[in-house]
């Protein structure tokens, strides 16, 4: 703590590249923005020179278009299709291999500890999403060692939001556009890619000390703060959360669930794009000889029929029941389980729904809509 610099610091574009290189040199696998498949994804960044510049995007329900900015900004976009759970809670994870030995079998554990991760460009909504997953996967009765092995040592470079996207509503969910904690370093990008840097940990300070930086000027700090404050009013979506949990839980029989099922593809895109959805399934396979077996854990979704399959069949057979399960879990029953909503307002489920279903619109309609008499009678 003694060598943590006091007050905000400032970095320029070269300083940012040097920061990436310092993380690589320190042995981290650095993950950050990359342009791939017509979108800004998160992928491995081998050096500071690789960071894309001058990109932006246009987002709306069911629509994402990569675009060019008229400046060379590093972080001139909102969140894309990738969320950090891809790296902290991987989509396909080998749990163990087993091989037949005589009349028994021997179990080989899955590969050892993964390389330490550095997450570069984590938005405040995604910091909140990581905190939601921490709550489920780091502690409590179902702690997941595979998650802990990736999460505990992860170095987090957050980027405060100054230009929210068309489907963003973090301001409604209280998760952004500015993060005050949960990072090692937090950057706010200013004009000409001058960054104001907030230091959130001693190892953040230590790393920053290895790259060229200077104290931030008072007007730079004020401008950064003003930019994130202004972002609050630029959200593409809003959601009134007061009373929402109770209203949704009282609307189990709302006709809106059937209406949305007419559009819902049950394709599972929303759940897999969601940064807090954590559900997985387990697949056991054997090889042709029957001599070797593997157990894999894979991302699953409450939109699949198999998800609610128990003896006798699937509990949630209809798309309306599956959509209702998902939306009410995110916005209502997550409160009962974890004392907060499961939604952080990142807007991914809205953008990446091929049918363009808007969670904020559906939640509003269900909460506001006519509740049939039989639902009102419930307890």
């Amino acid at each position: 703590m003694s060598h943590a610099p006091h007050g905000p610091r400032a970095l320029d574009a070269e300083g940012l590249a040097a920061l990436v290189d310092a993380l690589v040199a320190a042995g981290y696998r650095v993950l950050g923005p990359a342009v791939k498949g017509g979108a800004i994804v998160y992928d491995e960044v081998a050096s500071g020179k690789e960071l894309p510049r001058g990109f932006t995007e246009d987002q709306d329900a069911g629509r994402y278009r990569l675009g060019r900015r008229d400046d060379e900004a590093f972080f001139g976009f909102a969140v894309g299709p990738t969320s950090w759970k891809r790296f902290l809670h991987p989509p396909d994870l080998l749990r163990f291999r087993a091989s037949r030995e005589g009349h028994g079998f021997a179990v080989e554990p899955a590969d050892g500890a993964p390389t330490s991760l550095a997450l570069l460009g984590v938005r405040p909504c995604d910091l909140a999403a990581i905190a939601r997953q921490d709550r489920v996967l780091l502690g409590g009765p179902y702690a997941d060692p595979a998650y802990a092995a990736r999460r505990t040592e992860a170095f987090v470079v957050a980027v405060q939001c100054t230009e929210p996207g068309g489907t963003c509503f973090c301001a409604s969910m209280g998760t952004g556009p500015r993060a005050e904690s949960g990072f090692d370093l937090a950057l706010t990008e200013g004009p000409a890619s001058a960054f104001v840097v907030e230091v959130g940990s001693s190892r953040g300070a230590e790393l920053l000390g290895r790259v060229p930086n200077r104290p931030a000027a008072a007007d730079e700090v004020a401008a950064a703060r003003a930019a994130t404050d202004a972002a609050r009013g630029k959200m593409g979506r809003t959601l009134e959360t007061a009373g929402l949990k109770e209203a949704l839980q009282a609307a189990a029989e709302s006709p809106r669930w059937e209406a949305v099922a007419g559009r819902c593809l049950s394709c599972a895109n929303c759940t897999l794009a969601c940064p807090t959805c954590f559900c997985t399934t387990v697949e056991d396979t054997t090889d042709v000889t029957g001599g070797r077996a593997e157990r894999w854990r894979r991302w699953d979704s409450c939109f699949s029929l198999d998800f609610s399959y128990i003896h006798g069949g699937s509990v949630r057979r209809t798309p309306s029941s599956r959509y209702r399960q998902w939306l009410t879990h995110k916005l209502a029953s997550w409160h009962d389980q974890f004392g907060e909503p499961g939604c952080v307002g990142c807007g991914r489920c809205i953008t990446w729904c091929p049918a363009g279903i808007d969670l904020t619109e559906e939640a509003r309609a269900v909460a506001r809509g006519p509740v049939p008499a039989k639902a009102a009678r419930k307890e």
Partner: protein
Amino acid sequence: MPRREKPKLAVFKLASCDGCQLSLLDCEDELLAVAGEVEIASFLEASRAVVKGPYDLVLVEGSITTPHDAERIHQVRRAARFLVTIGACATAGGIQALRNSKDVHEFARYVYPSPQYLETLNKSTPIVDHVFVDFELRGCPVSKRQLLEVLSAFLAGRKPVVPTYSVCVECKRRGTPCVMVARGTPCLGPVTQAGCGAICPAYERGCYGCFGPMESPNTASLARTLGDHGVDAPGLVRAFRSFNAGADPFRRESEIHEQT
């Protein structure tokens, strides 16, 4: 451990292109292991030597398009302890089910100088319309990985891991940005069963629906979305009427747009 007798495997072909049974030969690295675990009793694509039935496991490729095959499939069923149909032809009627919405005899007049010698049925139908099928493996062609999984599961006496959710799940797991959302490229992924590993979107193409309808396909909603991306009614008919044209959800959706 005393070696049990190896199960007898037979592969039969009806109206089809042979691509699915070739997937078995294409299991290069695993082919010897397969041959070590089963007695390949009848597999004309691989060998002329044929061992008589009954067989423990029968793989059937192809659809029923002739009166002869409609008879023969009953013989195949009688000789099979466990019958698995492989590929879009055997599970949905295949591309040749395009005849189902037209007059096949008219086609025959255009193609053959003496069509009176042809004996063909008005419709191309999947095996399950004729005999009991123990397991259906989708795809045009089937995935080699899934074929091996079905064989391995059969040999181990367990249920095969062959999910019935959408192709979108595979795109998301492999990290492919949605081609429909990010590029406006029409894609059948949301209504198509997973299994191929989401190959086409990884190459920036939309899904063609080779693996047929997923477990709860909302083709009407997808058709509206495709319409928003510029696909007109004839385009929608063509999209749903390809390798799995005979699969009910796809057939019904194509008929709706034929009428508009």
